[in-house]
């Protein structure tokens, strides 16, 4: 196996496209190295993107935030301005693994690992995040929701990699939140995850919302019908009940050792309600 550590995006693209065998992109490595050890991945080469300076930065971009693909969860959690704008996204990232894992794991890696239960992905989808992808034809921006195409699969072509995730500017009176159900208190894989991002007007009426569910379909899903139950309401009990029903209706989970279909369908609604209440509070709405 060959270890490659380019220092520019251009060099990374050139190296990635010139590899004849299986080349895996290494960001935090908390999934890739485990898969290599267990024999699920046997790359001919590894392309480490952590030596590319611009991929290690969190920066303002077009009113929002651009988070480099090599930025660790810990670095995101320590960035007070980012946390203030997108607390739900950061809390979802920070739920992944232990302190040690947070020191390495990246949000872009969580996206590209393409687990249906990835914690950060519903939060990014609710936030309207956009992934920037580099390849031989240059850069392209696509919604995070379109990146995973199935368990372990993404829309990226060979020779492409995610360089950063962009989070939009946060409108006034907006808030987001992510909750997941796990049987333990910490460090487990989501049985269901739900993220809500919403915006209120000065009177406390919801003017925009995005709701996303994780671990209840082959990929995290954006549930427009759930967002519609909130928009135009004050996110009151009636709206929350409708939200819960819409999320349960949208859930298409499998049954496995971590939860039955019935349980996941129910919990999708429960988590949506609770996440919406937190998002509303963060947006400055009356609780």
């Amino acid at each position: 196996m060959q270890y490659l550590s380019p220092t520019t995006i251009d060099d990374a693209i050139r190296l990635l496209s010139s590899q004849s065998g299986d080349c895996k992109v290494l960001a935090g490595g908390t999934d890739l190295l485990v898969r290599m050890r267990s024999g699920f991945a046997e790359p001919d080469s590894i392309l480490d993107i952590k030596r590319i300076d611009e991929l290690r930065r969190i920066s303002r971009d077009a009113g929002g935030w651009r988070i480099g693909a090599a930025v660790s969860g810990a670095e995101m959690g320590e960035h007070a301005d980012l946390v203030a704008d997108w607390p739900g996204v950061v809390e979802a990232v920070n739920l992944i693994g232990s302190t040690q894992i947070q020191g390495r794991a990246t949000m872009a890696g969580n996206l590209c690992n393409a687990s249906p239960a990835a914690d950060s992905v519903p939060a990014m989808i609710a936030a309207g995040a956009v992934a920037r992808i580099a390849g031989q034809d240059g850069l392209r921006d696509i919604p995070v929701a379109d990146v995973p195409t199935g368990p372990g699969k993404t829309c990226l072509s060979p020779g492409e990699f995610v360089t950063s995730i962009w989070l939009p500017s946060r409108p006034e009176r907006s808030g987001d939140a992510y909750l997941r159900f796990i049987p333990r208190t910490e460090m487990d894989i989501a049985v269901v995850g739900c993220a809500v991002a919403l915006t209120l007007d000065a009177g406390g009426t919801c003017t925009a919302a995005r709701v996303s569910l994780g671990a209840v379909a082959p990929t995290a899903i954006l549930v427009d019908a759930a967002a519609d139950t909130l928009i135009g309401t004050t996110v009151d009990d009636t709206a929350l009940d409708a939200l819960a029903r819409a999320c349960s209706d949208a859930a298409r989970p499998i049954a496995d050792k971590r939860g039955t279909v019935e349980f996941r369908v129910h919990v999708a609604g429960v988590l949506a309600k609770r996440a919406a209440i937190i998002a509303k509070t963060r947006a400055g709405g009356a609780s």
Partner: protein
Amino acid sequence: MSKIHVTTTINGDPVEYLCDAEETLLDVLRDHLGLTGSKEGCGTGDCGACSVTVDGRLVCSCLMLGAEAAGREIGTIEGMAKGDQLHPLQQKFIEHAALQCGICTPGILVAAKSLLDHNPDPSEEETRYWLAGNLCRCTGYDKIIRAVLDAAKDMREAS
């Protein structure tokens, strides 16, 4: 396949080694450099027995390639005591009997030092969360938490 030549800093000392691309930092520390304080428990980032710091950041050395260490500052358990002088955390682990078999202890000490470097006055809850990635099958954790909090208190009073 030719080996990768890596120049790095470990516990403040300049270090050079040759490693294969597949080898983890833990493999390098233990098998090439004789720094066997970092233990391999699971090899998949679950147990924390291989905890080290990289540029001050706590990580599992089993989830990092040896080649990635080039130019970084690595901190291992071997750098914790100053000669014969134990670090206050090490001393408190002895006083509180916060270890039994000892396999998890180096990783827990490195993780606990990293906690106190970030937060000299952690609550019990913060301490338990910070150390949640370090598994111990002997102690039941309570003595470990007491030792860390006691060491933190002494270190605050001494500074």
